[in-house]
């Protein structure tokens, strides 16, 4: 191979890699959409759960209106089937730097779905509890918080 040929191949390889990476970076795939969707969902859950942590820590004052607001938001979110976004190919192993979802979710989908279901049940239970006054709601809030770790401890990585 002549020097010129080697140089040409290097240039072509570089261009292919550069163009490829530009497309890959900005290109939406079903996988990237699924990851963004579930992360957006998680942000909503976090935003609506925030006041619960405030109540449990004693930083926020309880009111029936606040309880009902939290319960209706989380109830609505819990009824939304977020499980559909956990499609194959969207684990941390396949999309490092994008998601903390561990491959264990797909290896143990039954356990993951059960943990997700437990959380959803605890979230919808807040609705009934919100009608029952402070003590009932705080008890339900404690149970609700206990279910976060159901997914986040075994199925979520500590970093991206």
């Amino acid at each position, binding site marked *: 191979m002549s020097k010129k040929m080697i140089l040409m191949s290097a240039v072509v390889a570089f261009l292919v890699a550069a163009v490829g990476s530009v497309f890959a970076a900005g290109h939406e795939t079903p996988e990237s959409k699924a990851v963004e969707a579930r992360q957006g969902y998680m942000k909503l859950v*976090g935003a609506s*759960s925030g006041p619960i*942590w405030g109540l*449990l*820590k004693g930083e926020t004052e309880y009111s029936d209106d606040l309880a009902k607001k939290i319960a209706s938001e989380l109830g609505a979110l819990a009824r939304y089937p977020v499980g559909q976004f956990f499609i194959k190919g969207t684990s941390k192993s396949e999309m490092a730097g994008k998601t903390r979802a561990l491959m264990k979710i797909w290896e143990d989908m039954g356990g993951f779905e059960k943990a997700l279901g437990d959380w959803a049940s605890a979230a919808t239970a807040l609705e009934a509890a919100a009608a029952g006054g402070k003590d009932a709601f705080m008890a339900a809030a404690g149970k609700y*918080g*206990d279910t*976060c*770790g159901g997914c986040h401890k075994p199925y979520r990585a*500590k*970093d991206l």
Partner: protein
Amino acid sequence: MSDNHAGTNNTGGDTTGAGLETRKLWDVPTRLFHWILAGVVCYGWYLGEYGPFIKTWHFYCGYTVGTLLVLRIIWGFVGAPASRFASFTYGPRAFLDYARHLFKRRPSHWPGHNPMGGLAVFGMLALLAVQVLTGLCSDDDINAGPLVPYIDSSLSGFLSYVHYWNSRLLLVVVGLHVVMIAFYWIWKRENLVLPMISGRKRVRQSTKT
């Protein structure tokens, strides 16, 4: 400040040619520090790992550990001889000497922290300092350390990650510490736990009187 620095005159772990005496080695603050720290660190670790998701008591453990560390660092300069940092800062030769005597089946009668033990003290203090400082900046979406509002959220995410892995490192070092105590007890027939309770230890006679 310049009174007897136990350990500084020792070059090895051997007892030959030196008389023995039982004397007060660990002063009260050092012993209190040790046992309160051990308890609070264990409880804090347990709460972090298995405790309720509201981490208020884990936070209290962290603040306590931080306070203890500050007091111990001060004590490292003004405390009793064996508690001073200068008394267990050794050069490379002391480490070699120590290693040569390590597996001898007899008590070391070391008057303070030996070279490896001293290194372990510095290591544990440093790891605990990292643990407390990263804890102040950690956020698990439910509990946020007091410094979290003042730092970038990506930095807080990274420090939460360090907080977790540093705790694994601490587990290893604390485990090693306990294993070495057992090794001294069983292999070298030297009880190092009792002196940390009573303060009194059978040691080589001090060269200064």
